[in-house]
């Protein structure tokens, strides 16, 4: 591994994503990416008694499927890096019981997907493991219960509110033995905390936009690349409010984002015209995870995309901090993926 600039790790061995999985709930299953998901539950309870158990079931299903898709036995797995939005990251830690491998729990709110992938890739790249699992999950009801109101409570949400995705995405990162066609993890840009003083927990897109912009600028500065290097750049979940703000911040800095396709996982996952409950778009750890591990990796495997940059954004607030009137610190982590084939 090599450090580029001040924020970027370049993975010199190019670890490979051997297999991945995206498991979602019924609402995501009605969205435009349904065909890219590996398993769609038809009920939010997933046959469990509590919302928390349901989220854990999602996570366990996703980790199992990722192992199957990677074609490796569970015994071969050497590391698990995971996290979620619950207090004390119970979903991933409890799901880790079933895996029985060394485990690092991480928390980066909705940026956890790329945070865990960056750490897993670093472990594999540095020779710390041959196979590592990176995964995360979120469940609409557990998040509503912990961060907002009881799920059935009738409160009107403003037009800036985002809808937490019910889903879990996992990826098996493996040592590159030269035989795989990828996709490969090329580099990771680790974000700094950005807090521009926004306090509204129902407008996280605007709070997270500066973090996404800052990490993107850092990535281009550290790597010396321009946006046109990538076929697609997606942000984590800025949704319909945050994405235009990030575009404006980047345009103000003279970053030519028009060279590439610039989109957002929170906008891709739902059809906002039909799925009105999603309001401004999707959010939650599961959002960027299932869009990346389901939709984007499948498109890369089909050859539709060669180089992709994923910038997962996280709003690092707690119910306690916003009730005490604190502003929302945000972070964004970027990962560059590249599919195999001829070298560029």
């Amino acid at each position, binding site marked *: 591994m090599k450090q580029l600039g001040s924020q970027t790790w370049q993975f010199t061995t190019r670890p490979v994503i051997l297999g991945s999985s995206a498991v979602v709930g019924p609402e995501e299953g009605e969205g435009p990416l349904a065909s890219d998901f590996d398993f769609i539950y038809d009920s939010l309870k997933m046959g469990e008694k509590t919302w928390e158990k349901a989220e854990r079931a999602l996570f366990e299903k996703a980790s199992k499927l990722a192992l199957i898709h990677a074609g490796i036995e569970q015994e071969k797995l050497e590391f698990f890096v995971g996290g979620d939005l619950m207090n004390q990251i119970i979903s991933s830690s409890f799901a880790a019981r079933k895996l029985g491998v060394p485990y690092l729990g991480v928390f980066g709110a909705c940026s956890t997907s790329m945070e865990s992938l960056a750490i897993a890739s670093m472990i594999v790249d540095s020779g710390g493991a041959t196979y590592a699992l990176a995964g995360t999950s979120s469940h609409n009801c557990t998040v509503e219960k912990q961060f907002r109101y009881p799920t059935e409570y009738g409160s009107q949400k403003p037009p800036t509110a985002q809808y937490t995705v019910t889903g879990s995405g996992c990826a098996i990162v493996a040592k590159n033995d030269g035989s795989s066609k990828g996709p490969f993890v090329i580099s990771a840009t680790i974000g700094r905390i950005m807090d521009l003083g926004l306090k509204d927990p129902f407008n996280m897109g605007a709070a997270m936009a500066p973090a996404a912009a800052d990490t993107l600028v850092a990535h281009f500065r550290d790597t010396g690349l*321009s946006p046109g290097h990538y076929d697609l750049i997606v942000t984590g979940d800025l949704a319909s409010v945050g994405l235009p703000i990030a575009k404006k911040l980047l345009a103000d800095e003279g970053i030519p984002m028009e060279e590439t396709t610039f989109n957002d996982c929170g906008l891709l996952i739902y059809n906002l015209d039909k799925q009105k409950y999603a309001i401004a778009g999707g959010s939650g750890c599961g959002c960027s995870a299932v869009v990346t591990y389901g939709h984007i990796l499948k498109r890369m495997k089909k050859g539709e995309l060669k180089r992709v940059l994923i910038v997962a954004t996280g709003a690092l607030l707690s119910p306690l901090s916003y009730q005490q009137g604190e502003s929302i610190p945000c972070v964004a982590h970027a990962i560059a993926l590249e599919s195999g084939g001829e070298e560029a």
Partner: protein
Amino acid sequence: MPAKTKQPGIKQRLDNMTSEEYKKLSKPFVPGRPVLKNCIRAFLIGGLICLIGQVIQTGFMSIFGMNSKEAASPTVALLILISVILTSLGVYDKIAQWAGAGSAVPVTGFANSMCSAALEHRSEGLVLGVGGNMFKLAGSVIVFGTVAAFIVGIVYALMGFGGGSH
């Protein structure tokens, strides 16, 4: 190799940006709450719930021969029952997203706040879960309702309205 981008200065610019500057920059992108539309919807649904209440009350009066005072309690009880059933079926929160204050202010909203909290925390047991959390949202309505009633009562008494003595 692709061309290098020009030296970006966002790090400094964002670091130096004040909260006010960012609020100003982001404001055009942040849609506001549709206040007028929300008021009209609240008026319609709030009014509709009251109308249903009136129909129920009139029904109790004409069918069971109650006077309006006797009919008031069973009317409220029936509205609460309807609200609890709608909450349990997962419908009330969907009505509320459309109706806003229209479904939150009437007694049905109060019942929804208690029922939703009780349902949500059933998984933590009857005592710590249901009992401990049922008034999570309704609690402040009761506290501040009582405080407001107390203050209004004192004002009435001091101004010589005689607060309930006649």
